[in-house]
Structures are given as structure tokens and as C-alpha cells.
């Protein structure tokens, strides 16, 4: 769990460095080796690590548009994920998806750039497991800003009435881009939403990875045993802007400082030291994580870019004949127009 968390944190630090390359001095979102938006999850690691420790490759995870920490905890291929973020041909999606749209079917991981829209597919994965009599479960991750979305609420209901093996994990970092939680939700504790669907609702405070682990163990165990869904809200914190380049002018300084004051990784490190681990042991784990991340990033940067023509592939698995759209210009003059 600790290794997943430090890997995710260091991975995002390295991505941040790479992302900013070429975008200075004036920030230009489309410049540099990593183009497009980049949403980092520094401060969210406890949620992903604590939950995914209980998952197998055959279990499904759907992540939101801030997916890296979840992907790492779920065991997504780090090199190919990195290549995807750099827009390379050997990336998970051949450069078509990018950082918000990572798909690794080997470990049943998917994500979406649209708020809360990973919830219904997670319900579907749970439905498939039930119909096939498998003990696989599905976990949908979302932010607390997403709990007002119809797709989330409808998914809770469907999972509840069908008693499906789904766990909804709300990562509560207090901010939906510029909107503080108290202005987007009538309740402070989002897990209360579960009550309306007669489903267990659990909240874990203080970025506490161990407590997340315990709560997730119970929720996933319940799902796997055929006892239906759980809504688990986990307090995390946001260490940076919503996306890279977000000036966060809407956010009070005290709030930023408070977020940096409660680091889930430091909290878990303290717990581990209290349990008898030495600093050297922890440093060894950090070192291993850094090596793995650096290796993935170096590998990804060496990968080739896709050929432009590859853009036309993969619209369909089974392309219909005549699907091509680049026919030559039609010369009406030659056929005489309307004469």
C-alpha cells in the first residue's frame, strides 16, 4: 500500500516536470512533450491504495479523469500508460486516448473524462459478474463534485435494487474545480447519499490509508459475497490546482496550507514506523518506486509517435466497407452539372 502511494506521488511529480517542459515562460497548454490537460492526483493516494489492495486483475475499476493513482494501484502497465500520456504509438491506446482515457483490459481498468460517467459501466461489470456467477467485483471511483450527477445517483439505485457487487468510492478533496464542497452538496458527508438507496454508506476521514484499507475490505468482501453494493467516501486532499495551469485564485491560502499539512503518505509512514519498520525500510521502498517510475518515463519518451494515418484506425473493430471518408473531390463539371 505504501509502495503504491509513493509510486503514484513520485510518478506525478515526474509527470509535472515533463508537462511543464516547453510550456514556459507563458503557459501554453498545447506545447511541450505532454500536450492537452493534465489532472494530477497528489493527495488522493490513500483512496486508491487502500481500496485496490483488495482487488484482483479480474475485478473491474473505472476511474475518473484524474486516474493515475488508481491505475497504479490497480496494476495498470506503467510503461504503456506513460507512453500513452506522452502520445506514443506503444501507449495503452496507441496515442488515441491520452491521460484522461486510459484503458488496460489486462487488469480491467478503464476511465472517462466525463464527470461520474464511469459509474454506469461499473454497474455493468457488476451485472456481468452476477449473471455469470463469478465472484468478481467492480469499483467506481469518482470525486465529491460528482455526487450530484444523475449518472451516479441512478447507478447507486440500479446497483442497490439488483444487489450488484459494486463499490462506489468517492474521493472527497473538498473542491470541484473552483467550487468548495459546501456549495455543491447539502450534506457534508457524501456517504449519506447511500441512505436513500438502502445501501451501506461509510466515510473515512483524515487521509487515513489504513482506515480506508479496513473499510474497503469490508465493502469489497460484502460485494464479493453477493451482499450488494456499498458507498465509501474517503477524505483526501488536493495539493495542487484542478489541472496543471489552474491558478487557483479562487482558493484561500489557508486551505492550500491545510491540505499540505495533512499528507496521507506521511501519516502512513508514521503508522508503519510505529509498527516497527525502520526508516531504511521505507527509503528502500521509495527508492524502488523512483527507479520504476524513472524507467517507465525514460522508456516512454523513447517510443515512436504514431503515424498520422493511424488516426483513421480503430473507429470500429469490424470496419464496414466504404467507411473511408477521404474520397477525391467530386467534379460536377465533368458530369455536366445539371445539364
Amino acid at each position: 500500500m505504501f509502495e503504491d502511494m509513493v509510486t503514484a506521488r513520485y510518478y506525478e511529480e515526474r509527470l509535472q516536470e515533463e508537462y511543464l517542459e516547453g510550456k514556459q515562460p507563458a503557459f501554453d497548454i498545447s506545447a511541450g512533450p505532454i500536450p492537452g490537460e493534465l489532472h494530477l492526483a497528489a493527495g488522493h493516494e490513500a483512496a486508491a491504495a487502500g481500496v485496490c489492495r483488495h482487488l484482483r486483475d479480474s475485478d473491474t475499476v473505472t476511474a475518473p479523469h484524474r486516474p493515475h493513482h488508481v491505475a497504479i494501484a490497480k496494476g495498470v502497465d506503467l510503461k504503456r500508460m506513460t507512453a500513452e500520456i506522452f502520445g506514443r504509438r506503444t501507449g495503452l491506446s496507441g496515442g488515441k486516448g491520452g491521460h484522461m482515457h486510459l484503458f488496460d483490459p489486462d487488469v480491467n481498468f478503464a476511465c472517462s473524462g466525463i464527470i461520474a460517467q464511469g459509474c454506469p459501466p461499473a454497474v455493468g461489470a457488476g451485472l456481468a459478474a452476477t449473471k455469470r456467477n463469478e465472484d468478481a467485483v467492480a469499483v467506481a471511483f469518482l470525486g465529491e463534485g460528482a455526487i450530484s450527477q444523475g449518472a451516479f445517483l441512478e447507478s447507486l439505485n440500479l446497483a442497490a435494487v439488483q444487489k450488484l457487487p459494486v463499490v462506489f468510492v468517492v474521493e472527497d478533496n473538498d473542491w470541484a474545480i473552483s467550487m468548495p464542497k459546501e456549495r455543491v452538496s447539502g450534506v457534508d458527508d457524501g456517504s449519506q447519499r447511500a441512505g436513500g438507496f438502502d445501501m451501506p454508506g461509510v466515510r473515512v476521514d483524515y487521509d487515513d490509508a489504513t482506515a480506508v484499507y479496513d473499510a474497503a475490505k469490508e465493502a469489497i468482501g460484502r460485494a464479493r459475497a453477493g451482499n450488494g453494493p456499498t458507498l465509501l467516501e474517503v477524505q483526501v486532499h488536493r495539493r495542487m490546482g484542478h489541472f496543471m495551469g489552474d491558478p487557483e485564485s479562487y482558493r484561500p491560502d489557508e486551505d492550500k496550507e491545510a491540505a499540505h499539512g495533512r499528507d496521507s503518505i506521511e501519516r502512513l509512514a508514521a503508522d508503519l514506523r510505529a509498527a516497527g519498520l525502520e526508516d531504511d525500510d521505507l527509503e528502500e521502498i521509495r527508492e524502488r518506486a523512483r527507479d520504476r517510475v524513472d524507467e517507465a518515463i525514460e522508456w516512454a519518451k523513447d517510443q515512436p509517435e504514431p503515424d498520422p494515418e493511424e488516426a483513421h484506425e480503430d473507429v470500429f473493430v469490424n470496419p464496414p466497407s466504404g467507411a473511408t471518408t477521404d474520397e477525391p473531390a467530386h467534379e460536377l463539371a465533368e458530369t455536366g452539372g445539371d445539364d
Partner: protein
Amino acid sequence: MAQKERQQAVERELTMSRAMVEAIAHEMRENDEVFYMGEDVADYGGIFDSTEGLLDEFGHDRIMDVPISETAYIGAAVGAAQRGMRPIAELMFADFFGVCMDQIYNQMAKNTYMSGGNVSVPMVLTAAVGGTYNDAAQHSQTLYGTFAHLPGMKVVVPSTAYDAKGLMHNAIRDDDPVVYMFHKRLMGIGWMPAPDGPKTPVPDEPYAIPFGSADVKREGSDVTVVTLGLHVHRALEAAESLADDGIDAEVIDLRTLVPLDTETILESVAETGRLVVVDEDYRSHGVTGEIIARVAEEGLADLEAVERVAVPDVPLPYARPMEDEVIPGTEDIETAIRSVRS
């Protein structure tokens, strides 16, 4: 023409976002019933600067941040509009329409018709459109054709600051639902540099540009290029480049898709005989097909050659070489113009 004279008379240049905001602020001062509602529009000022500075003047009651719940707040705008208010609701990215399309196309767009004209929905739905910044398939679409295809909404696509202001005044004053689609790359946002074109002189005073009046952005006698949004600027660049080779292209900026100014297109094609339609939306079943169909229906005798330049029918890819491949560039437009000339 009057518009050009008026533009030439002022020296003050604005970005497209400043021009939009100026029109909104003016209409809000004039009419207490106008308010703006959306995600990150108040304290943030709009992710694409669509509401920058409005909170300071109008406060949270009239520049309203809302939870991430497009069905609820866009539907609420419909309801408030039916009660006679004039809401502006922002859908942050046009790509997100899928989470709330019922409120847009079954409620906002159809209630006037279904009520036999007894109910009106005087609201504006604003949405950012467009790619060219490698944000992949869920954040880069233009979807002009989708909105224009469904009856009941007027669809506006400005390409310059001057047009953005005049069209916004008209949109807010219009008694029908208007979808106002602004291209991110034209707004003049700090982190997404705009080409030179969209920043234009903008008069201080309010002025309304009527819907259904396409604008001839460049006059020419050899080929008619019809386009909108970002691609007005790419078409102009292509036309300037071809002028060195003695090809004189006329560039028509549609400015609104509903209503569509067929007359201006037909008049131009009657002169040039050659038509190129350029769109950042998907190629099939969309704007390019519609324009060509109208010219074929009403001006076939004038038409000697035609070509369309659009996104082939693929979702927008992330990696730069592939995005460049599918989004029409200046060179693609040049090639098409040469092709209809040959």
C-alpha cells in the same frame, strides 16, 4: 459595408472573450431578468474566460456557480426562461451535452413547438467547442451539426470579437433558445494562444448582429470558401497564401447555422462557380453536407466543382500527429481550393 466602417472607426481591440463578456454585462445591466449559471463561472470566471470579471459587478445571485449537474441546471434554465426570465446557462464543453441532452433537445428546443407557440424559452446555452490542443475525444468536438440538426434552437458560432459581441447581444434579446458555441482557440485565453484574427476592433456601444447574416470575410472571384469558427481564420490564411499564385478565394463566415444564410452562399457561388466547405465537425451527415445540398438544390447550374474539408469520421485522437491529421489545417484548405480550380 456598414459593419466594416464601424469596425474601422474604433481603435480599441478586444479578445473574443472580452467582447462576449461586454455584451453579457451590458444586457445584465439593462435587464434584471438576465442571469448566468454554470460550473466555475463565478469565482473562477469561466474555464475559458467566458464570464471573466462578471462576478465582481453582479455577485453570486446573478453569476451563479452550480453543482456538477447539467441536467438540473440547464433544465432549470429552461424552467426560468419559461417563466419569462432570460437565463444564460453554460455547458463547459459541448462534449458534455450527452449528460443533459434531454433538457436541451426535448425541453429547451421543443417546448415552444409542442405548446403550439404558447410557451417561449428565451435562454442562451453557451458551450466551448473545438480541438487543436490535444485533449482527445471527449473534450475536443465542435458538434455544430448535431445542434443545428435538431429543430428548435438557433445556433451561433462567432469567429471574431466583433461578431462575438454583436451575436451575444442578439442571443440574449432573442425570444427563442439560442446555442452560442465559442471556439476555445479563439477566446484569447492566456494558456491557449489564439491566432491573430479573432482579436478585432470592438465598439463600446451595444450592437446586435442579426442571426442568419453570413459575413464575407474576404472577397474573391475564383472560389467560394464557406466555413465558420476557427476555420474562418485558417481559410483566410489559405486564401492569402493562394493569392500569390493568382487564385482569388472568397471566404464566407456563416456566423449562424440556424438560421442559415443560404442567399449569401448562392450569390457567391453564382460568381465563382466553385465551392469549398470547411468544417471542424465530422464530415458525414453534417454542416458540409448541408451547405452543399442547399447549393445543389438552389444553384446547381452555377456549380462547376465542389469539395468539402472536414474531420473524417473518427473521434478526435490525443497524440499530436494524429490530431493534426484529422483537424483540417490551412494546407488542407489550400489543397481543396486548388482542386476545385483544376
